[in-house]
């Protein structure tokens, strides 16, 4: 599919660069938590990269740093040629919890980004298109508590897309959904990714999801959180979940994370 953003200049603004970033927190008990230690990563424009690893490995922290919601203890983060210092409408963030504003209808939730930037008047029609795109036009006037989990998450994705962000940061966006809804949503996210050419960084617990969706998989390990290995996924799209190469890659990642089972992990 043709991307609206293909062409010159795109690579600069749509890529991400993490340079030797560390992030320390002060835990409530006074101890120093090393959430992220000396991490470097480059994500090319239009690339879909997954961050995989056990909890506490700093993948959500990395995402919040890239969103500009946190500042690093040391190191630098770049979006194209711009240093990331604060949140920007160019970098959308989607959480595991849809976090729709419960006091707004679905339509008003989708308009939130336009209202926040003061461009609702010019771009109002885009919200209607987005609602059709994610199949929520019948629920435009419903309140979030009336939606099912999958619908709420679709609304959350649409809300993040309304600003045409260059980069989408997805923090386990499908983690709370049931297996079938989840697989359908994976295809929907891929469809959006292809249609818009958005750079995507996806945090996930689900190795199958990472292999199915991403160009590269970044494996992270905890205490302190850092990048263990980066794996290229060289499978042609659309991918088959039961492809032998898919399963081989899955086994490799599980082994890397020491979850492959007693016998193999002993050998490794």
């Amino acid at each position, binding site marked *: 599919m043709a991307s609206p953003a293909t062409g010159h200049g795109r690579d600069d603004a749509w890529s991400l660069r993490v340079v030797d970033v560390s992030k320390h927190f002060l835990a409530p008990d006074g101890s120093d938590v090393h959430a992220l230690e000396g991490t470097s990563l480059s994500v090319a424009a239009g690339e879909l990269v997954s961050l995989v690893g056990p909890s506490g490995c700093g993948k959500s922290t990395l995402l*919040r740093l890239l*969103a*500009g*919601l946190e500042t690093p203890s040391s190191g630098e983060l770049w979006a194209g040629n711009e240093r990331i210092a*604060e*949140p*920007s*409408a160019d*970098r*959308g*963030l989607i*959480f595991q*919890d849809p*976090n729709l*504003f*419960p*006091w*707004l*209808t679905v339509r008003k939730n989708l308009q*939130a*980004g336009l*209202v*926040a*930037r003061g461009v609702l008047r010019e771009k109002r029609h885009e919200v209607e298109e987005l609602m059709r795109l994610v199949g929520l036009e*019948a*629920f435009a*006037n*419903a*309140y*979030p*508590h*009336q*939606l*099912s*989990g*999958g*619908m709420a998450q679709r609304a959350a994705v649409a*809300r*993040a897309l*309304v*600003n045409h962000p260059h980069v989408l*940061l997805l923090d386990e966006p499908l983690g709370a959904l*049931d297996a079938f809804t989840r697989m359908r949503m994976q295809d929907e996210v891929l469809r959006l990714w292809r249609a818009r050419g958005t750079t995507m960084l996806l945090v996930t617990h689900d190795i199958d999801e990472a292999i199915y969706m991403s160009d590269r998989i970044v494996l992270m390990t905890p205490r302190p959180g850092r990048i263990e290995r980066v794996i290229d996924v060289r499978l042609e799209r659309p991918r088959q979940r039961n492809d032998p190469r898919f399963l081989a890659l899955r086994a490799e990642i599980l082994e890397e994370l020491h979850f492959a089972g007693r016998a193999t992990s002993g050998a490794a």
Partner: protein
Amino acid sequence: MASQGLELAAPPAPTVSAGADIQQAGEMAAPRPAVRDVAAARPQRRGRLSLLALLPAVAAAVALALHTWLPNGQKGANPTRLYPALLSGMIAFGVFVFLTQRLWRPIQPTRRTFLYAVPSNVLHWCVVNAPLPAAGVLLLCAWDLVTLKFALMPLPYFPGPDAVIQTLVDDWASAGQGQPGLFECMTHSLALLFCGYLLGAFLGVTCGVLIGWFRLARYWGMPVMKLVGPIPATALIPMSLMLFHSPMMSAVALVALAVWFPVTMLTLSGVMNVRGSYLDVARTLGARPAYLIFRVAIPAAAPSIFVGLFMGLGASFLTLVVAEGVGVQAGLGWYIDWARAYSDYSKVYAALVIMTAYFSTIMTLLFKVRDRVLVWQKGVIKW
């Protein structure tokens, strides 16, 4: 209405399937206040009138019979024809409601149907909630018996319903001796309450948002809140009278102060407890601080703000009545004080009757505002 029974049968449950979502969305399309009366959902058999609807008329007939045929026990009582006339009217109205009961349906009032919808809703309420007005009439009857009839409670402290109702009518325009009547007292109190409450609520929400949002405002504001807040506004009456010269201004200030504290407290707690992820989402959507405060923090805190507004309303009634007893020359609080000074207790009770109707109406109005503003909470939180 189909959705009525549905609402009663099953509170909205979390749903997964799209079908259930559509059903819920359809229900949402016409937001209505939740139906409380169980009888409304009960299918009525054609051709038979519910005898339940006759209860108020029966109760009024009993009250009228006892009032007419029992001898008066209280010495010095001077019964008028007003109370029996009122009871006769109730009997007539009750019989009318009973006979026409199947004509009245709850209707959502719109501009076009307004003239028909309002009486229809009221009469429908009378039909399905017939035991309530009946109990009210029986209470009047019991009051009549223990005072006027059996004199278990003496005059002048405990006049019967007859005397109080007569006072309500007599004192409506003027209380005698050139003093303002009940109507003027009502408007006077309303003006005072309105000014004081709005001022207090506005200041409360403003202070609450400032203290809840800005660290510096919290540092300096919280100690002030903790020191000044718990002082009952009524204890500040002498100071307030000196500060403001005009007793009217002083009363407004006291009511405002009484409202300000709970509204501030609940607003700041609501603002401080806004889910961080709502703010994070808004910031990644490009929100500036003004959007974060007015479009995220305040709406998210609205349920808590309304708790404060309700608490403030209760406090404002109390403060109003006390403050009006000092210096002000009209108002319901003043009227009670003045009547008590003359030992005219039927005036005291008349003022209490008015206050009951008056304050509960204002409370109901605030509930309506709440239902409208917090419509997004429907089915999430109930109180």
